[in-house]
C-alpha cells in the first residue's frame, strides 16, 4: 500500500532533499507515523498536541484533509498526499 507524499522545501531536510517520498498507512495519522519512522523528526513539524498544526495544510488527492476527517482521513493505495505550509502572517 504505497502512498506518494509531496514534501515542501522547508521539510526536505528530513527527506534528504527528496521532493516526494512514499509511505504507508490506512489513514493520515498512521501515514504520518510511517513517515516519522523513515524520516525522524518530521512528525513534530506536522502535528502539535495530537492534532494537525494550524498552519500546515495537508491534501489527499487535492482535497484539504480538514474536510476529510483530519488525521482520521482514510487513505488507499495510489492516493497522493501533498503537504504545504500555509502562506500566512500578520
Amino acid at each position: 500500500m504505497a502512498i506518494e507524499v509531496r514534501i515542501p522545501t522547508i521539510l526536505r531536510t528530513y527527506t534528504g532533499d527528496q521532493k516526494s517520498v512514499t509511505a504507508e498507512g490506512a489513514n493520515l495519522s498512521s501515514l504520518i507515523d510511517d513517515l516519522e519512522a523513515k524520516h525522524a523528526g518530521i512528525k513534530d513539524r506536522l502535528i502539535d498536541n495530537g492534532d494537525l498544526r494550524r498552519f500546515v495544510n495537508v491534501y489527499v488527492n487535492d482535497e484539504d484533509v480538514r474536510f476529510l476527517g483530519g488525521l482520521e482521513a482514510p487513505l488507499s493505495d495510489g492516493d497522493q498526499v501533498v503537504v504545504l505550509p500555509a502562506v500566512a502572517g500578520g
Partner: protein
Amino acid sequence: MLTLDQATYDAIVAHAKRDHPDEACGIVAGPEGSDRAERHVEMVNAAGSPTFYEFDSTDLLRLYREMDANDEEPVVVYHSHTATEAYPSRTDIGLAMEPNAHYVLVSTREHGNNDGPVEFRSYRIIDDEVTEEEVSVVSSLPARSTT
C-alpha cells in the same frame, strides 16, 4: 538584494493600495534556483483582515501545482501592513516557511487607497532570523543566462 522590474513593483504597490485597509498578499514566481522574480500572482487574502493574511488553502494548492509544473518557486512572498511599518511582525517571522524567498512588506499606512509613496522593504527570514536587504527596481530584468 532583491531585483524587481518596474512593472512588477508597480503591480504589487497597486494591489496593496487597492486592498487597503485589509492586507494584500501574493507572490512573484520564477524559475527554480534562478532568483528571478518573473511572474506576479495576486492571491486572495482568505482572512480578509487588516491584521492578518492567509492564502486560501485551495488556491495555495493550485498555485504550488502550477509552479511545480513550470519548474518555478516563489521568489518573492509579499504582503501589506495597513497600519504599521513595513517590517515583519512576530507572526510573519514565526510563519515564514519559504527559506529561498524574499519576503516583501509594503506599508500603506500613510496614504491608504490613495496615490502617494509606500514603504516597500524586503527581507530574508530563515530560522526566525530577519535580515533586511536592498530592493533594486530596474526597467526590466536582465536577459536570462543561457549557460
